[in-house]
């Protein structure tokens, strides 16, 4: 269970504060695979960053007893000058991985970077960096994975592999995902949250949620 308690979030701008959420209270069940649906600018990414703890609400609090991931495949934490291995170690250390060696091996095997794993990230091709980032997050056993349009990672082969890994993971863990691809949502999720005008609505049945979202 992820509990949002009276969340208010706005971004300052030249036209005054732009409110995304005003006094939002909501319980997100953590035993479902949830797709977050909403049109552009409805606040999906903001909600996501709040859940991930990358940003904080202006007032109110988010409490949870589960272990949430950071947004999967987010490449911003990867340093250009460090090697793939060093980046992996850094992420592992920060997240408190018990056995760093085996974590490194797991990431190396999953990312399929070969020798490049031991070279600085700046020498990587554009598809390799997201692959490393994806491998870093999928190799940790979180309770809930936050996924933002993840399946755009890498080439077709890697994409299949990433999907497969996520599906396997979703048997023990749950997934909260943002995507505009309904097929993708159908593949991973069993329920939906529709985000509209700063309000959240939970639909236990995914199809019902999608129908509501498309009727908006």
């Amino acid at each position: 269970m992820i509990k949002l308690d009276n969340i208010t979030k706005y971004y300052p701008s030249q036209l005054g504060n732009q409110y995304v959420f005003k006094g939002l209270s909501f319980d997100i069940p953590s035993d479902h695979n949830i797709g977050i649906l909403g049109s552009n600018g409805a606040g999906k990414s903001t909600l996501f960053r709040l859940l991930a703890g990358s940003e904080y609400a202006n007032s109110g609090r988010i409490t949870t007893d589960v272990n949430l991931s950071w947004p999967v495949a987010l490449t911003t934490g990867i340093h250009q000058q460090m090697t793939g291995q060093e980046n992996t170690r850094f992420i592992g250390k920060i997240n408190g991985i018990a056995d760093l060696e085996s974590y490194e091996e797991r990431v190396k095997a999953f990312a399929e970077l070969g020798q490049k794993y031991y070279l600085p990230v700046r020498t990587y091709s554009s598809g390799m960096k997201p692959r490393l980032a994806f491998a870093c997050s999928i190799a940790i056993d979180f309770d809930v994975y936050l996924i933002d349009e993840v399946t755009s990672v890498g080439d077709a082969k890697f994409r299949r592999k990433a999907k497969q890994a996520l599906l396997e993971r979703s048997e023990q863990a749950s997934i909260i995902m943002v995507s505009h691809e309904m097929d993708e949502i159908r593949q991973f999720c069993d329920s939906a949250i529709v985000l509209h005008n700063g309000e959240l609505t939970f639909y236990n049945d995914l199809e019902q949620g999608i129908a509501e979202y498309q009727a908006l």
Partner: protein
Amino acid sequence: MTTVIKRNKWEIWRDVIFALFVREIRTGFNDKVGISWSVIQPVAFIFLLSFLRGRMDGGDTHTIPTFTFMAIGLLFIQSFLQTFGSAAQAISKNKALYAFRQVQPISAVLASALFELLVKAFVILGIIVIMYFMGMDLQISDPLLFLSCFFLLWFLAVSLGLIFGIAELFLKEIKKVRDLLTRPLFFISGVFFSLQDFPREYWHFLDWNPILHAIELTRFSVHSSYGDAGVSLSYLATVCLVSFFLSLIIYFTYWKEAISR
């Protein structure tokens, strides 16, 4: 299976600061000279300037060797400026890492401040080694005072850096103000002169500056004959303590807002 250990807040802090510290060492310098440059450069600078200055006059300034006089001044002002600058920059430099919930801005500040401390410890060592080989006497009359001044000044730099780092996230232009403010510090902090060179009635133009207190006290700590007229450790400590608490107040009030903009 990769399991995540349940850690308490302190263990998370320790791990994060350690990881950032290693990252700092790893990424700070990328050419062949690497991290040694951060020690060689200040040692060479301090040595050359102090040595030339020592040659130009009789070799003594207010009863202490001019080399020591200058080396202390340069070392301390450099430590202050560099620690202050890197602490202030650490917050925005590591902004991408706050995507990980475990990483908080203050960890980044502490990691870069510890890095600077380590570098400066090696710089002191380098200068001592040079002084030893040049046959200068290495006596120190009050080592405890020396260490107090060194750490207090570092502490002051970190506190002020934290304040500026947070402020710069709200208003980018503050970085320019910071550059402007730090420039004259090199010339008013007693690096090239002593407070004793000035008539007593003009001291109040200079003695508000805690860096001056730190530098003069350190010279006194090395050679007690230098005297400590006009400066006091308690003033330095008070300024440090006040800015430390002020920086913590500002940090705890604004950090979430600052990184959520």
